[in-house]
């Protein structure tokens, strides 16, 4: 495709809304700065109300920022109306035009751009092939399944060859299985088209599986930016750790750093953790993923098993370490010692799996 990949820069943007109940102003988005590389796939991830959709709608032009500026391909676009911006959006509800058939839906943007008729025909046919809907041009939108409507919406956005493709929770109306197929499809098509994409979702597994970069938002501010692995293994805050996957938190104090490891004191027991920037003597929290926590007959701490449940792929434990509840996934449990509810077991972990924040 001949489109020019464009990067996006958000320069300290904020958006103020009025709370409908209290009538008070509040920041829906606060001081968000981002630099999105041309051709990359970036996901805005966060719980509902975190400002991710508002941020996306500011990029599209449907909302105007109260502070800061938005740049697309180096050009400031704040004053442009959405129809003048080089972006195309895939909506949560697909927003297909119900009075047009598939061909006319996809051709809509091209007609506005006054593309010659035979070129429109060729482009529409090509793009429908790319999204796997060839031969369905004449169907009306209500004759399509949810997944097919999603593909039409994607084709319609892609065909105008925008500088950036915006996705507003595009898969949330699909069933779980189709969601998984479609996200792979979206990633494939984005790669083939080589287009910059900004994707909004609240589904962390969706974000992990398709993104080059994930931007986690919470309460209108950016909580962390990073690749999926960075965010999963090195969360900067308890919020991020908890939001991406399951996480156990152990509170303690950083004693010292030695031999490329940190030594943390937890209730009088010294454990080795991954090296970190936490200062010696400071309070710290260890983030432990359930699958990298080990339960055995011996270990660092004795724990009480309160739930033990066979899940097929793994044995699920809930254990109590003092007042702290921890979740443990013991994968491939067939040949391992299984603890039952009420038993005492010992918890341990590899130092490289224990991340301090």
């Amino acid at each position, binding site marked *: 495709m001949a489109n020019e990949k464009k990067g996006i820069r958000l320069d300290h943007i904020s*958006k*103020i809304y009025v709370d409908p109940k209290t009538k008070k*102003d*509040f*920041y829906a988005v606060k001081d968000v700065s981002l630099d999105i590389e041309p051709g990359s796939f970036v996901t805005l991830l966060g719980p509902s109300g975190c400002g991710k959709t508002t941020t996306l709608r500011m990029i*599209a*032009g*449907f*909302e*105007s*920022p*109260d*502070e800061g500026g938005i740049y697309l391909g180096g050009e400031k676009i*704040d*004053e*442009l*109306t*959405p*129809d*003048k911006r080089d*972006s*195309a*959006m895939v*909506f*949560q*509800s697909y*927003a*297909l*035009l*119900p*009075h047009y058939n598939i061909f006319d839906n996809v051709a*809509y*943007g091209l007609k*506005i*751009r006054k593309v010659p008729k035979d070129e429109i025909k060729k482009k529409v046919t090509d793009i429908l092939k790319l999204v796997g809907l060839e031969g369905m041009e004449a169907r*009306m*939108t*209500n004759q399509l399944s949810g997944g097919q409507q999603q593909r039409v*919406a994607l084709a*319609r*956005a892609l065909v*105008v060859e925008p500088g950036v493709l915006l996705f507003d929770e595009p898969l949330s109306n699909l069933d779980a299985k189709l969601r998984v197929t479609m996200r792979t499809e979206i990633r494939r098509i984005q790669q083939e088209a080589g287009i910059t994409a900004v994707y909004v979702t609240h589904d962390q597994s969706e974000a992990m599986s398709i993104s080059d970069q994930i931007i986690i938002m919470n309460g209108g501010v950016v909580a962390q930016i990073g690749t999926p692995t960075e965010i999963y293994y090195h969360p900067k805050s308890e919020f991020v750790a908890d939001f991406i996957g399951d996480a156990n938190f152990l509170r303690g104090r950083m004693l010292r750093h030695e031999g490329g490891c940190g030594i943390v004191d937890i209730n009088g027991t010294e454990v080795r953790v991954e090296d970190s920037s936490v200062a010696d003597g400071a309070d710290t929290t260890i983030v432990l993923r359930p699958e990298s926590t080990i339960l055995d007959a011996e270990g660092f701490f004795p724990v009480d098993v309160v739930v033990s449940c066979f899940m097929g792929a793994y044995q699920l434990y809930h254990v109590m370490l003092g007042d702290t509840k921890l979740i443990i996934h013991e994968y491939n449990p067939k040949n391992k010692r299984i603890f039952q509810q009420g038993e005492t077991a010992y918890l341990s972990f590899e130092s490289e799996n224990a991340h301090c924040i």
Partner: protein
Amino acid sequence: MNKNQSARLDRTKFFADPVLVVTVFLLIAMLLLFVLYPLVILLVDSFLEEGHLTGAIFERVLHLQRFKVAFWNTLLDGMIVGVLSTLIGLLFAYVDVYVRLRSRILEKLFNLVALLPVVSPPFVLSLSMICLFGRAGFITKYLLGIRNSNIYGLGGLAVVQTMTFFPVCYMMLRGLLRNIDPSLEEAARDMGASRWKVFTSVTFPLILPGLGNAFLVTFIECAADFANPMLIGGNYDTLATTIYLQITGAYDKQGAAAMAIVLLSITIVMFIIQKYYLESKTAATLTGKASRARMPITEKRVTAPLTVLCSLISVFVIVMYVMVLFGALFKVWGRNYSLSLEHFRRVLFMHGGLRAFKDSAILSAIASPITAVLSMIIAYLVVKKRFKGRGLIELLSILAMAVPGTVLGVGYIRGFSGGIFHSGILKGIYGTSLILIIAFVVRSLPTGTRSGISALRQIDKSIEESAIDLGAGSSRVFFTVTLPLIKDSFLSGLVTAFVRSITAISAVILLVTPRWKMVTIQINSLAEKGDYGEACGFATILIIIVYAVVALMNLFIKHFGTSKYMEE
């Protein structure tokens, strides 16, 4: 926190769309000029005498015996008709929603009753009431032999208005009842409540605000009604007729302006209570759709009396309408009941009927597309756009609903006969067909806008956003996306505007000049002279025309409407 930047950006974006900007400015100018200004001039006129602020005009009017009587008459009539219409409307709605009707004929009958007032000119029932129960009435004189029956006055008026307005209540309440989740009532039944207890403790409280709503809507209609009090009111003058007589009889335009302000205040207060208090209350108690179909009531002891009562009322209403046709066919009403087409011949060839139908149809046909497009544009701007002045546009176009035709008529006379603020500017439009067309448009605009707004609210905002996002400007979005999606509402707005215009009388009667003949005014003057045969002839043809237009629209919507692809 400072929202200056987004406000500035939104402004920049708004002004980047010249079509939108021009449309908004023209609309606001038009609404100010033809809705607000005529009302303002009435206020100015009734408080300003020779450049001085004075309460003298009001004082004079308030002491007029004629005014005092008319004032209380209007309120009393509104109360009676409001209560009766709401109750009968509730009865019909309840039977429609809760009782399984045994036959298709009954369903058809109910639909017909609901449709008739929409397609009929406002005074048709008065005509047939006089024909049936008047001094020479078919029932009173011919069947019962009563010689001195007097149908003129509050009694006749209230019956006629109730029959004219209850179908509106029926439609409103039917919608509400359908929205009640049946499981609420089933839960009450399950806990041991009888049908009657369920009705009084669950259904009735839920629709109470809706009943108030229906009452007020009817009250406003009654207060604004001009034709019926004119024909059947006799000595029972209401404000609407008194204002008219004050202008045409007493030549007291300032007094009429002051009276118009009083009438306007009544309707606007009612309207504000209805719109901003009751409507939100209704919405609060009845949210969303019923979860599943309701089990209809089948016990004979409940269904039989209700159905019979409704059927009787329906038959009575329909007989009244049919009477209009016979009124036109009987040779001499009251004396010679042989059938003849003589009245129709006289209507068409002696009373300038052909010309009246032509004039009325032409002016209505010009006004209705203007109304339909304007109301859809207003609805689009109000629902889908954010800009300063949006609230003003919505307020003014909906406010017009609360303005009685007579008030608007007087406003136009005072406002335009001497030009804007008596300065001579725009004086030219007074006494022309243009001002009639404008009056038609303003009178039908609120209904069209309301239906457009509710149609647009059904459409997912992101459908239009997706078109904008792909590069379409406001006007392109309106014509390629919005309008096709609300085609049905547009068409019905078009037809409603036509019907309302061709059957309109209250504002028109004050504004029309001898150059244009209007059907409704012909009917009114014939009826006043006692030529009921001809009046009925006119009315019959008018009903046929209107019914044909409505039927055509329904046919069109059925085959080319949006509902086909909007269903899902």
